[in-house]
């Protein structure tokens, strides 16, 4: 039984990684989860310099999900490269570094800086709804997405995954722009922009007013977008949005994803990423699937 997948030339032992921002750089969860059992670890977004992030409260539970407005707090590339990459290198898994920035120059700087680091793939976060200056501006305009992708690709030594925002009228237009600019893979979906109001306190539940909605609640939107994008471009897709079980992962793979990320569900049970990987194997056994790649886009 083969669970290995290859994305932009990088082979993963199984198609499961974690969604950026839900898993730190893996150190905290490594006490509870065996990182060796994941196809890849995707780190929290890292910028060229340290970011303070947003004021608190940064998160709120919603029905079947949550909204977050952490605001990409991160220690900056220097501390990250010195501390987090060596930590992850101890494990037999791929390292995907999520890169964030406020300008094209910021992204390019981080991507260049990571060129000589022992990381396997870079995921470019152009879709965070919680940071005003950048990110999402690139993620909601196909031309801007094309330009940032091209700029990043020009300096990148690792395969580039562009992470797409679902807060658009036509996700395929965005996917095509990223592909045309040379993206090696796409990951989708980032969070849906949401808001929660605390009616008892008459105030916003997160200090940023809006936050990114994630969790099982949004899975149908994510599956739909993965399906649409898989029919619009040739590059591989890492699917995410509400995955909590092996069957959820299979659903994304059937929609056309090559791999999947587990995010919010990890907050409900730290073992979720590993359970999803195991659940994929159980599904394959139950239905006699020899190779996970057979299921991709099968509907």
């Amino acid at each position: 039984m083969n669970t290995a997948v290859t994305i932009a030339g990088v082979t993963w032992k199984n198609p499961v990684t974690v969604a950026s921002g839900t898993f730190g750089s893996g150190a905290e969860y490594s006490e509870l989860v065996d990182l060796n059992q994941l196809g890849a670890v995707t780190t929290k977004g890292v910028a060229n310099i340290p970011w303070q992030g947003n004021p608190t409260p940064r998160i709120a539970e919603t029905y079947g999900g949550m909204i977050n407005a952490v605001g990409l707090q991160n220690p900056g590339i220097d501390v990250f490269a010195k501390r987090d990459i060596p930590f992850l290198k101890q494990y037999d898994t791929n390292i995907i570094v999520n890169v964030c920035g406020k300008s094209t120059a910021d992204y390019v700087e981080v991507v260049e800086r990571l060129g000589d680091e022992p990381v396997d793939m870079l995921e470019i976060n152009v879709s965070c709804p919680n940071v005003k200056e950048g990110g999402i501006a690139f993620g909601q305009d196909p031309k801007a997405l094309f330009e940032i992708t091209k700029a990043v690709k020009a300096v990148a030594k690792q395969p580039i995954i562009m992470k797409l925002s679902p807060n658009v009228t036509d996700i395929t237009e965005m996917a095509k722009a990223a592909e045309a600019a040379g993206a090696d893979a796409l990951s989708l979906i980032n969070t849906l922009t949401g808001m929660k109001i605390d009616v008892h306190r008459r105030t916003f539940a997160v200090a940023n007013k809006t936050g990114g909605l994630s969790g099982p609640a949004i899975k149908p939107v994510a599956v739909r977008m993965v399906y649409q994008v898989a029919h619009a471009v040739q590059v591989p897709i890492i699917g995410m949005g509400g995955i909590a079980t092996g069957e959820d992962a299979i659903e994304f793979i059937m929609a056309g994803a090559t791999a999947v990320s587990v995010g919010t569900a990890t907050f409900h049970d730290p073992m979720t990423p590993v359970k999803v990987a195991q659940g994929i194997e159980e599904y394959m056994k139950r239905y006699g699937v020899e190779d996970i790649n057979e299921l991709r886009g099968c509907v």
Partner: protein
Amino acid sequence: MATTKMTATIIHQEPIGTGVFSMLVEAKAIAEQAKPGQFVNLYSKDGSRLLPRPISLCEIDKEAGTLRMVYRVAGKGTEEFSQMHAGDKIEILGPLGNGFAMKDGKAILIGGGIGIPPMLQLAKELSKNGVEVQVVLGYRDETFLDEEFAPFGKVYYASEDGNHGVKGTVMDAIREYGITGDIIYTCGPTPMLRAIQTYALEQGIEAQLSLEEKMACGIGACLACVCKSKEKDHHTNVNNKRICKDGPVFLAGEVEF
């Protein structure tokens, strides 16, 4: 200090005040590791509620392998917990956070409202260590858990309605009763903690403050529950500390909240 995710069994649960419940669970692996001021994540069984509820540890019995949580019903998650009975199972992750750093000096334990429960295990352990313990408890009106502090030290009260001890805040009680000590340990609502922070810094005595914030992971990964730190934090590399991991207990001098 390993953190364990496990299925705990509820041994006993009862209301001990209006909307305040005391739950005793068997969770040996967590109890063995836990110390005063730490907390656990409890998980809802209802699929619409995915985030854990962080609940402070009120009592830790390492021999019996049990944990006691005293909590207030503040929403549907805690309401669900409050309806559980002996024999029911509940998912639990812990121990979480740093807990109080127990010192030898004459102690003032200050608890406000639902910040009172974690002071009980602390009072017990400090008392066992031979430390002189003074307890100041602040309530809105109705008291709970207060009688259980009596064996470990002198207990003072403040209440908003004045029915229990000083009418006013715990700070009013400290001034009214002239309570002094070498170190303050405290947990409670933010305005109370701010007043204590100011007081401790003015008086030049150590104060360990247990902070609260909306949390997701509970283990320091998601960066939801930060507070501002006076100095750049070693881990985050910015002036933010993670309440769930670096805290919830901080020295009065190191955080702004």
